[in-house]
């Protein structure tokens, strides 16, 4: 048995302090974790379907989605702009198809790694005040609940690139669409004379 010396007493104190220090740090970490989890809960800002469009991600408000389907046959019409590839029939109704990649100018910025998203994968049929629109998109990345704490505060509509119809952008760069502004875009209206 080893006789306890003064240095041993000092060592014991060091150990106790270390233990205490570790306990305090652990407690503090737990407290911080609880505060952070309460902040992340936040209020629900939107429920969206996330779609990939030319390498970028967009959120479509779920309450405005009528259907999300594989891309159906699209009948082209003469002399339409590139972002209006034509019309499709969804359950017996004619719906105008909007190529979001071309409308937002994304298609010109494509790179090889984004090419996989370029091939249209799904059609999101949304309800607008004037009628339905079919939004042509790449992959369907699933549904998501966006909370207020996820919104990138520094981003505002006035700075959105190319004045895209975006309500807000999340911190992980998912741009949630403003469908009313999208439907009001004059570029979607065709009146040939």
């Amino acid at each position, binding site marked *: 048995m080893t006789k306890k010396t003064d240095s041993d007493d000092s060592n014991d104190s060091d150990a106790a302090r270390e233990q205490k220090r570790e306990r305090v740090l652990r407690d503090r970490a737990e407290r911080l974790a609880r505060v952070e989890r309460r902040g992340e809960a936040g209020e629900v800002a939107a429920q969206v379907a996330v779609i990939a469009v030319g390498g970028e991600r967009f959120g479509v408000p779920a309450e405005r989605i009528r259907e999300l389907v594989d891309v159906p*046959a699209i*009948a082209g*019409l003469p002399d339409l702009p590139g972002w209006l590839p034509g*019309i499709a*029939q969804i359950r017996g*109704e004619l719906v*105008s198809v909007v190529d979001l990649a071309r409308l937002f100018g994304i298609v010109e910025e494509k790179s090889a790694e984004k090419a996989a998203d370029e091939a249209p994968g799904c059609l999101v049929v949304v309800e607008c005040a004037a*009628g*339905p629109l079919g939004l042509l998109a790449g992959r369907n990345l699933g549904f998501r609940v966006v909370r207020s704490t996820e919104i990138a505060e520094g981003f505002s509509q006035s700075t959105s690139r190319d004045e895209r119809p975006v309500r807000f952008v999340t911190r992980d760069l998912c741009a949630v669409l403003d469908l009313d502004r999208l439907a009001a875009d004059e570029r979607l209206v065709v*009146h040939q004379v």
Partner: protein
Amino acid sequence: MTQRREKLLAIFRDELTENLDQMAQRLETLRAGGGAEADSRGETVDAAFRIAHNIKGASRIVGMLPISELAHAMEEVLSPLRGIGAKGANGETLSPPDLDRLFEAVTLMGRLGAGEDLAAAAAELTAALTKSTPPPAPAQPAAESAAVSSPDVAAAPEGSVRVEIGRLDRLMAATGELLATQARQAARLTALVRLAGDLRVAGKQLPPAPRPRFVQLSRALDSFLREEGQERRRFGYLTDEIGTAMKRVRMLPLSGLAAQWRSIVRDVAERLGKEVHLTVEVGNIELDKHILDGLRDPLMHILRNAVAHGIEAPAGRRAAGKPGAGTIVVRASMRGSMVQVEVGDDGRGLDPAAIAVAAGRRRVATSEQLARMDETEVCDLLFAPGFSTAEAVTEISGRGVGLDVARQRLRELGGHVAIRARGALGGATVELTLPVSLVSTRGLLVRVGPAIFALPVEFVERTLRAGAGEVQRVDGVAAIPQTDGEPLPVRWLATLMGVPREPDPGKLTVVVLARGAARLGLVVGEVLGEEELVTKKLPWNLKRVKGIHGAVILGDGRLAVVVDPLQAFDATRSAAGSAAETVLVAAATARPRVMVVDDSLTSRALERSILEAAGYEVVVMVDGRQAWEALRQERVDLVVADVQMPEMDGLELTRRIRAESASQHLPVILVTSLGSDADLAAGANAGADAYIVKGRFDQRELLEAVKRLV
């Protein structure tokens, strides 16, 4: 204004329009009555009175007092004649000036209902109507007076129900869906029957054991499909009946517009100091309400034009040996599922030369285009927007005012309008053609590349096949000479619709369109057949796409875009496109070149025919030496060679091909009757890419090998 009030006013306006149409019909009957029996005239007057009463009540509810007062004044004019007729035994009468004022009241009420501020004019007419009220009939014995109906009449004409037009629209849309669904189901049943047939044929390949059971099931399936076919046919009859009934529900007589026509002709003539008689010969023709509503303004415009710019002043007419009063005739007739309305006058007609000069000056058409146009096409330029301006109006004596808008309105209804310089009466004639109903029309389905289009059959005269080599350039446009007349100008539907053109086959399929005397051939890929089509309007954001009426959903769910054939005629006159269009021949280098080497004439002929039918270009050689000499000078993409040949056999040929750097990669297929393992090994050692034994020769094997190696 509250939403409720807006809705109420909308209902009132719809009801007013219907009432005024019915009133106009009754007044027309009275005007044309002549020697009609008093009884029938009495019924007509009664009906007119009830309508006036309805209008009075409804307009009071929505606070449109000028209309209410006018309606009351009409009641006062008609009341003494109820149960008696327009000319009663006691001297009561509805004179022509009375009738004119009643017609005028109908027109004025329509304008007031549309929101025009004409209170003063309404008050004036009300006063005039009140002054013209016939003196009351002498007191009748009680028995006779009892025959006069109470003024408290039913809200709606007898035997009819008033239905909100929105409900009818929804019912019509549902009917359209029903017809389309029925067509899709019929198509699916046809496909199912075909499948059952394929299954029956495939069943013959079965081994003997399961065959009896298969035959039993196959027969049961055939029986089921026969019964299903009968059910579908019954369903088809029912849906056809519903479709026909729905078409009729919304139909209103064209004659209902006659009052407005008379009014506009009278008003414009009076203002300009002219005298014009209007004759209406439209019989009992009925049109869908939507189409009738769309026809109102264009017809009014055409009539206004005819009076203002067609009919000369009385003095000028007499100097020209014509009666001082001009004549305008509105005549309607049925052409299949379309109605044709003609507005002709005996005025000065059109001057195509003046129109052409004005068109050139206003750059509506180039001098080249004008040189190619006949008189009808020149007159058609009046519909161009360039003739709507005040300056243009002055240049051509105003005849073109606003006609572009009229044509546009008619196009939106699926119709068209044309104008002739001199019609049957000597003056200009405007011809309007419109569908009778919106529920469904017949269309010709055609394929252009992967896309399907529908052409309304009313404009399709016939289809024909023409050799690509027959297409020539006539006056700068592609045309096919015809033995019985003018060359047929042709346009490719792919170009008009913006679909990428494919190389044309040797024989072209041409759909010949007709518009009056004009003809145009549309080159298509394939004619798929004629069908009853329920055309759906384009989605909300595609307000107008030139040349497109809408789209139909086919039985298999695909869309066929409904084309406006008249757009093709218009596009043909434009310089762009037609000058460059011609037969598109596939590029010569696109076909791979195959050399067939065999000393057997039969083998050479067989292999050549197989390969050429598959689209390859073929050169033949009779032995290996000839082939080798040719290969050193010609380019080929693949060699198919026999093994046993004089001079140089196929193995030696293959070795030499592999030995030369220029040809070492040239694919070689040996086709031979030598089928032993040693022979196959010899072929492989010589460097052949494939070895086909003639005894087991199957053309598919050869073609697959060629396709794989080329």
